[in-house]
């Protein structure tokens, strides 16, 4: 397998008047050709900023440390001109806020064709033809009419489809989708996820799907990386993450998923406590304040990603950043019924 994107020890820092914000704190991973990677974590865990930094889109007060390579070419610190040859063409990104992501005073047609004119040197007429094809591909009704419309004339779901179509215009090798359905209502969410699943087979693009909702990645992704406090807590295949979660945080996320199979309306479980303050992250495990399994070692030593089950194995497949030997046999930790129940249920499902 060839990697489209190789990220190594990437860190994102923001300078603010009341101290430095450590949004991303050393993450390493590959995205391989044609693969779909899910990035999951609560809001504020650094998912968006991780990929903003890859795209060179950090706010002015942010900076990136470490390395992110597109097919061997270093993106971190790349001059904007060179970066502009890659983003939009080889790597495309769509954002959470589809309602405000399109330029309000430009027609849809122009916003789409300009990408092709810029990267492929197409004529306006050819670009329009291609834009029309893409609108049909993302199943927008009356595609021809849409080209002449302005964003405010379209619904949220339609706008997100247009964002997706726009991102796919140049047949990128990597599509980063940052919570593409969060701002939409539930039925539209399902439609967009269906569309993404179809596109996965149609296009050759590798996909990174960022979401705070584990349910979203289930149908779509090959592997999942669970993020917290700017670090990966657990990585694995969708199967491993859903059925054999090894990190208390993953188990907590699973437990807080709404379960559609349940007959009675049970109060939704939520991980107690708040995400950590990124200006004063603990030296050791970032999850310690909220973890029911917390023990001495968690407060002294930062857990690094290790192979689940075998501490000496190489970093492939199922890894976790946790001092626990196993979720089922916690060392010197109080029993945590709700989490265990969830984990058990997921396993037997």
């Amino acid at each position, binding site marked *: 397998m060839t990697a489209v994107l190789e990220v190594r020890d990437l860190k994102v820092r923001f300078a603010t008047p009341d101290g430095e914000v450590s949004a991303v704190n050393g993450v390493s991973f590959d995205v391989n050709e044609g693969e779909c990677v899910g990035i999951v974590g609560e809001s504020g865990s650094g998912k968006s900023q991780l990929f903003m930094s890859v*795209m*060179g*889109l950090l706010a*002015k007060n942010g900076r990136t440390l470490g390395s992110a390579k597109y097919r061997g070419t270093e993106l971190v610190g790349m001059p*904007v*001109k060179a*970066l*502009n*040859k*890659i*983003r*939009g*063409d080889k790597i*495309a*990104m769509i*954002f959470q*806020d589809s309602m*405000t*992501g*399109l*330029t*309000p*005073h*430009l027609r849809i047609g*122009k916003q789409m064709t*300009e*990408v092709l004119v*810029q*990267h492929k040197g197409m004529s306006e007429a050819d670009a329009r033809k291609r834009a029309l094809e893409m609108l049909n591909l993302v199943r927008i009704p009356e595609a021809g009419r849409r080209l002449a419309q*302005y964003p*405010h004339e379209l619904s949220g779901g339609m706008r997100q489809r247009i*964002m997706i179509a*726009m991102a796919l215009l140049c047949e990128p090798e990597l599509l980063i989708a940052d919570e593409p359905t969060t701002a939409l209502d539930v039925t539209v969410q399902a439609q967009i996820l269906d569309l993404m699943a179809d596109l996965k087979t149609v296009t050759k693009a590798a996909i990174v799907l960022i979401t705070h909702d584990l349910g979203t990645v289930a149908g779509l992704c090959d592997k999942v990386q669970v993020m917290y406090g700017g670090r990966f807590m657990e990585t694995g295949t969708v199967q491993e993450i859903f059925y054999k979660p090894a990190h208390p945080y993953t188990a907590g996320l699973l437990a807080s998923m709404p379960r559609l199979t349940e007959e009675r309306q049970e109060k939704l479980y939520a991980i107690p406590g708040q995400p950590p303050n990124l200006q004063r992250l603990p030296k050791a495990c970032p999850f310690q304040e909220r973890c029911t399994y917390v023990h001495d070692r968690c407060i002294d030593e930062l857990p690094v990603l290790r192979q689940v089950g075998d501490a000496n194995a190489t970093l492939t497949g199922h890894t976790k950043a946790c001092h626990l030997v196993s979720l089922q046999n916690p060392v010197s930790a109080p029993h945590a019924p709700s989490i265990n129940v969830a984990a058990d249920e997921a396993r037997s499902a």
Partner: protein
Amino acid sequence: MLSYAVRRLLEAIPTLLVIVALSFFLMHSAPGGPFDSERVLPPEIEANLKAAYNLDKPVWQQFAIYLGNALQGDFGPSFTYKDFTVSELISTGFPVSLKLGLSAVTLAVIIGCTLGILAAMRQNTKTDYTVMGFAMVGITIPNFVMAPLLTLIFGIYLGLLPVAGLGDGSIRNLVLPVVALALPQIAIVSRLTRGGMVEVLRSNFVRTAHAKGLPEHLIITRHTLRAALLPVVSYLGPAIAGLVTGSVVIEQIFGLPGIGRYFVQGAINRDYTLVMGTVITYGSLIVLMNLLVDLVYGLMDPRVRYD
């Protein structure tokens, strides 16, 4: 859009009537009258004068007469410029003020927008601080200080430009007054432009444009400017109305025969008809400019609806 414009103009008529009525009654309720002067007039002459100008009638009757005449385009004779009608005074003075004002506005828009864009693109750098510092100075230094200063430097010390009057009518005569009039406007426009730019540059759609790999110049011209200049457009409407109706200070200092001085002189001399004439000119211009702003807004932002 045309029907919208026509409707707006029709709606403006009651507004203008209110403005005219308010000014009329306020002015007449102010103490003193057009014929008060150092030299006391014999009572019978004053009575004759007042009768000639209808000043002996009740105020509401005077207003009715004035309004009736004004609607027929007759704004009456001036009280102080005895040989002229108000229409004559305004129609000779207005072109001068208009030329001056429009030149200043043009200068302010071109320079102000350019500076504002530069400052926003180089936010928090030396360029930004220099432009904003200049804007601060431009806004705080009043006209009556700036104008003589410019005259001193360019007119007298350097001898580059004429100091006062229209001279032979060439452009050179207008340079100093236009610059003096434009400087504070340049300052305001550049601040508004910078503010609008900074805000739009942070918006989600500009982020999308960056993610699409578009070059900087396209992001500015195509994706940013139109949204960023909306505050400038709203400011310019009333500002243009104000500028083209003349600046008393500038016209006095540079000895220009515009209509700006009529406002003040008219009010001081209780030249009722002249003041009313200038009020109507200014009021109509404000109405027109606000309409123009709304129409331009619609061109710049497709979300604006006319209904």
